[in-house]
């Protein structure tokens, strides 16, 4: 056991230097003024952006739910396929991720635009034009599109491990197909669901480029707000750090609640 610990040293050093120290710096910045005095004013100022927090959480939540609803049946079907088909299908799922993130989002801009491809096609059959881009719907779409593979993969890897014989046994013992899903597959795939939700929800809540490109600048999210404090017009890293800190606390709270739904031995945080 002791020897095994040595193997984790590289990562522990990495974590110390690039995760722990920056986290402490964020916290330090959040409680300092520009003149170098201790203050809680930054934190209290975050309060005025409550509506941006609400919107971010809400949009990220919708995106996560859509991802789950789309990914779950797919992952189940995928895990029940023949082995060689599985790898091909997985390749197709992963394919969009090979393309640059910005490019993928940029493509949606030209698709959804007022003179974009979708509106042009609709125009040909006498519909529209509809306002597709610069809406919160477009932002959610961008989130779902970009983060869907992060939901599919953990779900698939958990479901793949569900032994076929378990499902067969359930059917043998009198479960109909609906009950097999609700009483066998879903409980067994719970760890996949929770980690999938984490992997979609956390990046979705803090994204900024998606809302900028697809939301038209009027659907401000927390990510945009933080970016504005560091690189944008309002240069105020102290407030930016405070917002990040509050965001981290909120995510932590939400994740703790989430983890209640997974078995005790697989708690994530």
């Amino acid at each position: 056991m002791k020897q095994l610990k040595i193997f984790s040293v590289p990562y522990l050093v990495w974590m110390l230097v690039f995760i722990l120290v920056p986290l402490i710096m964020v916290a330090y910045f959040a409680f300092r003024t520009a003149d170098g005095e201790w203050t809680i004013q930054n934190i209290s100022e975050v309060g005025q952006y409550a509506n941006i927090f609400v919107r971010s959480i809400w949009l990220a939540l919708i995106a996560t739910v859509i991802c789950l609803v789309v990914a779950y049946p797919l992952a189940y079907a995928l895990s029940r396929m023949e082995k060689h088909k599985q790898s091909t299908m997985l390749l197709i799922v992963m394919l969009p991720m090979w393309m640059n993130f910005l490019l993928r989002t940029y493509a949606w801009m030209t698709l959804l635009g007022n003179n974009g491809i979708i509106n042009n096609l609709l125009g040909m059959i006498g519909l529209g034009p509809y306002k597709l881009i610069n809406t919160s719907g477009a932002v959610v779409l961008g989130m779902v599109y970009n983060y869907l593979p992060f939901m599919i993969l953990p779900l698939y890897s958990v479901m793949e491990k569900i032994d076929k014989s378990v499902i067969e046994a359930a059917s043998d013992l009198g479960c109909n197909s609906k009950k097999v899903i609700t009483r066998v597959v879903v409980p067994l795939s719970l760890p996949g669901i929770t980690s999938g939700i984490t992997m979609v929800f956390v990046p979705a809540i803090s994204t900024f480029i998606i809302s900028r490109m697809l939301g038209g600048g009027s659907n401000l999210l927390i990510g945009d707000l933080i970016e504005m404090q560091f690189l944008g017009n309002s240069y105020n890293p102290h407030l930016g750090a405070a917002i990040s800190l509050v965001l981290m606390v909120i995510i932590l709270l939400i994740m703790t609640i989430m983890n209640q739904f997974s078995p005790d031995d697989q708690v994530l945080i």
Partner: protein
Amino acid sequence: MTVTKKNLLSWLLCMVMLVTGLTGCSDSDEAEEGEEDIEVQTLTIEDEDYYTRFKGDDIEINVYNWGEYICIGEEEGTLDILTEFEELTGIKVNYTTFATNEELYAKLKGGGVSYDVIIPSDYMISKMIKEGMVQKINMDNIPNYKYIMEDFRNLEYDPRNEYSVPYTWGTVGIIYDTTVIDLAPEEIDWDILWNEDYADQILMFDNPRDAFAIAEIMLGYSINTEDEKELEEAAELLKEQKKVVQAYVMDEIFDKMGASDALIAPYYAGDALMIMEENEDLGFVVPKSGTNLFVDAMCIPSSSKQKEAAEMFINFMCEPDIAHANIDYICYSTPHSAAYEMLDEEVRNDPVSYPSDEVKANMTVFVNLSDEASKTMQDLWTQMKSAEDETTSRWVMPVFLVACLLAVVIILIRRHIKNKKDIF
């Protein structure tokens, strides 16, 4: 199975290489064919000795400029300025770009970087002078300063012209789609950006300073106002505009106006000309009620370790041939008298690039706002942008947080009890 998949992959790779190889070839073919009728820019330097001082010293300078703001020989026959400079002086140039003045400021302020030449805009220069972030330039090392027009010397942001050498200037105006908006240019003023007939077809600046300037001009205030009440009124006006605005954008204006995704947008004159080359239906007008005249100028940050080499670069940028090649590529207006003379007659008489003195009289240069005023503006801007039509109650967030906290506490207590039970 794995073998066939590998085969497929290698085939795909081959295809990709083949296609890129082919297009690469055809590109160079085209270039050769087109060479004859392209005007080739040449470079003549008056005082070559000046530039050879550092030859062989292995000096590097870091230049930080706006995106697409220098001629690097992309079009056939144009000069590749950075290479020319490196060949002439033996100084290596590390060239990087930024998108906003604020990004530049944040980078410099954050430390950890060292730039030798930066090109901020007027108000940012005055801010940096005030904060000691840029150093005085030794004008004796920049003989080509003599070419800078009188109009662009000693402007408000750098009253004695000790810190900056003007690079380009321009105005802010309105780009509009002439096929839909059937108005004479004289009839168009800033209020068109509030016109409900064009709802959802209007783009707006995604930076507070430019956006507030438009509102302030409409209200008849100075674009450098620091009065809180005036700023609030301007914010109110911008809030009113929000319902007709399609999107708040900066560089995306290129795509959106180029593809006719929007009808009206305020933007910088030089960029507008570039967009108009792409989309001929577009027109540009500088509103008569006044606008902002901006100057981008070259400065040397205080942290620069190669001041003399930086000055050499600035002087090189002011060589008539270089300044002309740049302005020809950027499409902004030049403060450089010799480069101006070298421009085509048509460009020199273009009221978009070089407005008459009469129009110019109505223009104001930005100066840096006080910290309080810019914070007020910033807060008002964020409020304006994050305000929703149906205002979410300010209780939602606290209630949500308290609920989360309660849930966590309950969970922890439950676990605690459970653990205790397990022990017994």
